């Protein structure tokens, strides 16, 4: 082992420690009996029990899940259409604007996206009366808008890598172009669509800033609830909630990684 690889290995070790130690500590402290979150008071699972009795958290979690399921599905439909248009329809009017609009939401700072969508909803309400109140509907629309960009990019790059003569062959054999999309294109990009859906789902569950802008009174998503609690400092029941989320997502990601690896 030479000097260079020793350096690389130490940086890797430090980097992974940097990424994971904070998470591990949150998990450890979630089993802390003490109600002062930073002092160790013995092992206990009492905070998990409190979590289950907290209706506010359950309501917020339920709202977040509903938004995530709906917006991920809408984002997948719209994003797939956008990816198809960008990868397969070479020339159409307004293409440059379109591809610019697709990727921009991904890189736009959240405060700007949130503010601009809220102002849109307020303006629309003045003009048309819709949306009457902000909450599930407005957050879902906001999440769909920024996560469809991710789906579109994933689908587009899958399509770029795919042999276009597959679709031409189907057309050559008598498949009408629209039929060909369902016979050939969609089955082949299905893995990309699933990946896009999962990403959109997670992004929606994760979003705090945009939801804070476009939600109305009385509708708090899970991140909004967590934020309102942690603003006041470290708290043990949030440790427990964080542990559940971290474990749940880690297991999910690990499983899909194992499945994907076996298929390759």
């Amino acid at each position, binding site marked *: 082992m030479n000097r260079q690889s020793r*350096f690389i290995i130490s940086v890797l070790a430090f980097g992974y420690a940097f990424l994971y130690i904070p998470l591990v500590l949150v998990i450890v402290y979630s089993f802390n009996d003490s109600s002062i979150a930073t002092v160790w008071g013995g092992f206990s699972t009492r905070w998990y029990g409190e979590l289950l009795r907290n209706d506010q958290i359950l309501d917020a979690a339920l709202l977040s899940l509903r938004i995530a399921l709906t917006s991920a599905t809408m984002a997948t439909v719209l994003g797939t259409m956008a990816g198809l248009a960008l990868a397969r329809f070479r020339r159409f009017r307004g293409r440059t604007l379109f591809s610019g609009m697709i990727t921009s939401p991904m890189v736009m700072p959240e405060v700007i996206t949130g503010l601009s969508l809220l102002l849109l909803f307020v303006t629309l309400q003045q003009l048309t009366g819709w949306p009457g109140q902000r909450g599930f509907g407005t957050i879902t629309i906001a999440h769909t808008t920024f996560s469809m960009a991710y789906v579109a990019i994933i689908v587009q790059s899958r399509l770029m890598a795919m042999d276009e003569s597959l679709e031409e062959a189907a057309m050559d054999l008598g498949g009408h172009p629209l039929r060909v999309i369902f016979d050939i294109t969609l089955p082949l990009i299905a893995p990309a669509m699933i990946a896009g859906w999962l990403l959109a789902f997670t992004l929606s569950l994760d979003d705090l800033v945009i939801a804070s802008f476009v939600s109305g009174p009385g509708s708090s998503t899970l991140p909004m609830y967590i934020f309102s609690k942690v603003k006041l400092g470290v708290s043990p029941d*949030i440790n427990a909630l964080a542990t559940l989320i971290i474990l749940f997502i880690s297991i999910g*990601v690990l499983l899909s990684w194992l499945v994907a690896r076996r298929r390759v």
Partner: protein
Amino acid sequence: MWRKAIIAAPYLWLLVFFLAPFAIVLRISLADPVIAQPPYSPTYSPDSFTFLLTDKLYAITYLRSVVMAAGATLLCLLLGFPMAYGIARCSPATRSMLLLLIILPFWISFLLRVYAWMGLMNNYGAINNLLMWLGVVDQPVQLMYTDFAIFVGLAYSYLPFMILPLYATLERMDLDLVEAAQDLGASRSRAFWDVTWPLARPGVIAGCLLVFIPAMGEYVIPYLLGGSESLLIGRVLFDEFFVNRDWPLASAVAVILLLLLVVPIVLLQRYQARDQEGTA
């Protein structure tokens, strides 16, 4: 017909929910704040902009945001480059495992990851406990609510965004090139600066932009880890809007932030478009 429908659905959606909102932000930034519902006048005036540009506090806040974002970007690059390099040089099996461990935090709630540092950097948190136990200090060091905490929080949250594009370019790079350079008489470090670095540059630029742009508008990290006086522009925008209810000023803050970010955003899109073509 059906082709038009496939284009039109996402196109219209983006026009209404992405492009139109910006026009509205621009419109409202040129209004006067009034006490009404909604709290802005139907008139036009550049007052919000003149206020922003003359009040030193805002200029300092923008500047601080740029400096913090740039500092965090540099930190991510210094840590991320050797990591990406190391991962790219591993055997394929280890590589995919290591890569998974980079991506995993990205799927875990951003908010919770920032929250994790609150427990770590607290006066009685893990870091201070460790330092005092080691006898390095005998008083807790103030970590939370400092600029240092913001730097660490930004670097921690955005590190995966730096590593992934770097890894992508380094992995694609032909190792023979470095060996060829060494074969032709370059030292190890010369070969790095002559071959590896120039070839990795697209990844470096993409990674830096992916960290810098969102860090500029960051709201959660300065709020939770920074002190109340360490103002960053994302938080100012939020507070002007929700606390002071000055919609025109908040809109003007957003417009200027967007202007500052136009160049990096366009640059990033160009790199991503080129990358897409490159892999096709």
